[in-house]
């Protein structure tokens, strides 16, 4: 067994040498993938293992914070994590990620320019974009006949008790900031004071807070419109085109989830091999098929079906440029308290 490992390592070292990469010996033939629960189709994992022989130990999580909790506890060492943009920013600041060797991820060229060098990873050194999306308004046009163009159209008294929103205090505050004409990252104490009256007016109109599956309430007909993830809206549209997706006129924001390699990853080379695998157009297409967010891989987009590309929630017409979330540090606490207080006033 040991001899086999040795010869494999020798072959790889030779391979590496001839392609000019670092001559680290290939670690154990497995990688620990820590990713969002809905983002990695089993087919992609199986395909990767079949091709490279590297086993993928896949552990899902349902929020950035859950991921950070387990990552920092040190209980497990992960090779790949899949943080959102603002979390990557914080991780880079805390020096928790390692640099990606782009020579090992040549398929990175398939990623669209508009998804590279964004503020959270300005020199594109640490992350490979996985899926992008936006947060916007979804409307059941059978029940709501008035035109809905922005947040102020949604949060009207006539829709009281018919609205679903994400159960995320930072998101909610960002919408009210947009209504004030501010960017989603302008979270000074002053700005928060200014959004309080707006939220005090909006929140009593909400029927359901749901970040996990807001489509449920919409499909059930218990609510008629809401502010949700674009992936949820895309699912709804695919189910029934009566669900329209609208990017709010006051200002929407996008999110970008990317693969990154923690600083203490046991098998960074395996991780980069995985990164290279998923940026292949035909593999990326599988990911899109599984969950209809915005695929940043332009080559993959060419392989998508016309229905997928026509879905306005996945690929908003006009390809608008949207701002992303930045790391806001301690302001998160103030935001959470703000929303909790207002919700409790019911």
């Amino acid at each position, binding site marked *: 067994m040991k001899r086999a490992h040795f010869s494999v390592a020798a072959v790889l070292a030779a391979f590496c040498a001839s392609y000019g990469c670092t001559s680290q010996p290939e670690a154990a033939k497995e990688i620990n993938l820590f990713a969002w629960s809905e983002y990695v189709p089993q087919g992609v994992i199986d395909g990767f293992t079949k091709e490279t022989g590297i086993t993928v130990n896949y552990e899902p999580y*349902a*929020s950035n*914070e859950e991921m*950070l909790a387990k990552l920092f506890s040190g209980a497990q060492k992960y090779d790949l994590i899949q943080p959102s943009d603002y979390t990557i920013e914080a991780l880079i600041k805390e020096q928790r990620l390692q640099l990606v060797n782009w020579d090992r991820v040549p398929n990175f060229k398939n990623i669209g320019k508009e998804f590279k060098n964004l503020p959270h990873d300005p020199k594109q050194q640490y992350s490979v974009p996985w899926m992008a999306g936006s947060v916007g308004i979804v409307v059941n046009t059978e029940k709501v006949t008035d035109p809905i163009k922005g947040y102020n159209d949604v949060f009207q008294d006539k829709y009281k008790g018919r609205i679903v929103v994400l159960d*995320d205090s*930072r998101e909610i505050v960002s919408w009210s900031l947009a209504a004030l004409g501010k960017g989603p990252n302008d979270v000074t104490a002053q700005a928060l004071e200014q959004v309080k009256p707006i939220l005090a007016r909006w929140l009593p109109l909400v029927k*359901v*807070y749901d970040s996990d599956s807001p489509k449920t309430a919409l499909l059930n007909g218990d609510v008629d419109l809401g502010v949700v993830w674009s992936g949820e809206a895309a699912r709804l549209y695919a189910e029934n085109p009566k669900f329209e997706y609208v990017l709010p006129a006051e200002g929407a924001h996008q999110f970008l989830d990317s693969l990154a390699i923690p600083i203490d990853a046991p098998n960074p080379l395996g991780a980069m091999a995985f990164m290279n695998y998923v940026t292949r157009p035909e593999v990326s297409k599988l990911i899109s098929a599984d969950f209809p967010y915005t695929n940043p891989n332009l080559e993959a987009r060419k392989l998508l079906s016309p229905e997928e590309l026509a879905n306005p929630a996945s690929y908003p017409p006009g390809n608008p440029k949207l701002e992303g979330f930045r790391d806001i540090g301690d302001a998160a606490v103030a935001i959470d308290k703000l929303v909790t*207080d207002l919700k409790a006033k019911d």
Partner: protein
Amino acid sequence: MRQDLTSFDGGTPVRRRRPSVAAWLLIAPLLAWVLAFVVAPTLIMLVYSFCERGTLGGVIYRFTWDNYAAVADPTYLNIMVRSVLFSLLTTVACLVMGYPVAFYIGRAPEARRNRLLMLVMVPFWTSFLIRTYAWVTILKSEGLLNSVLLQVGMIARPFEMLYTPGAVIVGLVYTFLPFMILPIYTSVEKLDNALVEAAFDLGAGPLRAFSKVIVPMTSPGIAAGILLVFVPALGLYAVNDILGGGRVDMIGNIIENQFKGSARNWPFGAALGMTLVVAFAAALWYSGRRQSHTT
């Protein structure tokens, strides 16, 4: 003072012996377990509750009272009171609904008893999430219950049941009912049949027979059921999220938010948790003290 009607001599209190070496050896694993897996983690949380918040979650080891000061905020105290009320309501509902069932099962012939017990438990070997989402299907405006009520003509328009506090209570009662039925069943099962028959035959109506004789005899089971429902119900937030629309926060939601939500405020979550534990432990200790006075 708890009346002990099962022993005819009027209730000889248990004469506890001083533990022998063997007894110490036997209880040692339990004590070790509690020390390692209850006390140690709780101490970790206690330490965290006095620490400062780390930017990416986690803590910075610098002492501060801030977290407990934040707990004292009226918003959170209100939420805690509300959670206690919900738990109380759930417990009472479980008691009312579950006691007759436990009584029936406890007095059934042995073969049927076990079958009934299994019948009670089997629904809870399915996934909590799917079960609770099934309640969404039942309670939604276009759902089962509304359809039936509309068809039968009891209501003219769909009744709004989902995403209300009522729906949350239904979900909580559903989740905890077996944990009320089972402990009460263990008390009912050992009731002396002759005594039960006598209670009913001696002229008193069934209600008095129950309240004056049977319920007191099964009080240990009732107390156990109350404990096993009220306490866990305090911390459960998932039912509130799914059936209540997440509109009204329970203390469980707040704490979850500190660890798994965008707040990333572990020390505050720890402080909230510690407050709950201490409050409850104090209540338990105090009630235990009052009972031991009578032994």
